[in-house]
């Protein structure tokens, strides 16, 4: 299966990305978009699969931002 994934970045100026990949995106995993790294926080099916293609919508956050906010919450 080929996963056509639309990555949408919440909170920030990053425009997001569109990538075809041979593995399904998973919540908690990191993804490299351009020169920045993001963590996946939500995965949903945008359209029913057609042929060998699945169409997914992924929401992600910058890893650094998430780490900073987690540290803030801990202090």
């Amino acid at each position, binding site marked *: 299966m080929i996963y*056509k994934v639309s990555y949408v970045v919440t909170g920030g*100026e990053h*425009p*997001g*990305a569109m990538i075809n*990949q041979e593995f399904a995106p998973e919540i908690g995993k990191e993804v490299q978009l*351009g*020169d920045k790294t993001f963590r996946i926080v939500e995965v949903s099916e945008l*359209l029913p699969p057609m042929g060998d293609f699945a169409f997914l919508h992924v929401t992600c956050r910058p890893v650094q931002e998430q780490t900073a906010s987690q540290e803030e919450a801990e202090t």
Partner: protein
Amino acid sequence: MGISLSALRAIELFAGLTEDELKAIVDVGKTTTYRQGDVILRKGEQSTEVYLLLGGQVEVVSELSEDATSYIILGAGQSFGEMALLDAGPRSAAIRCVSPKAEIFSFGRDDLLTFWESHCEVGYKMLFNIARDLGFKLRIRNLKQEMEGA
């Protein structure tokens, strides 16, 4: 043919094509390697190739300047330049390579149209795939606008 069948299968524009059709259409285009920072397309230029990303990432931007608006990053399997393929109009955005390197397969508009005329079934499948891709991008744009408004 120089490009693996598995790489071609990951390109949505080729969805539904048989192995023989894939081998035939690959002979119509060419593969180019770009390096980080290379400009692939300039906004406003009059070129009509369509591009398919075999590997790496490119960024779609409003202009080639520091304060340009970034529209999206495209990765493996994505295509760009389809609008000029369909309407032969000027490029609506600029494209630059943002990964250490990007392998890009491209077709000349005239070469592709000529091929489709002699291979109508391939033309039907690819045009359907282009239409579906444009629909997918429209859905994503609507979803982003909903998220921004929420």
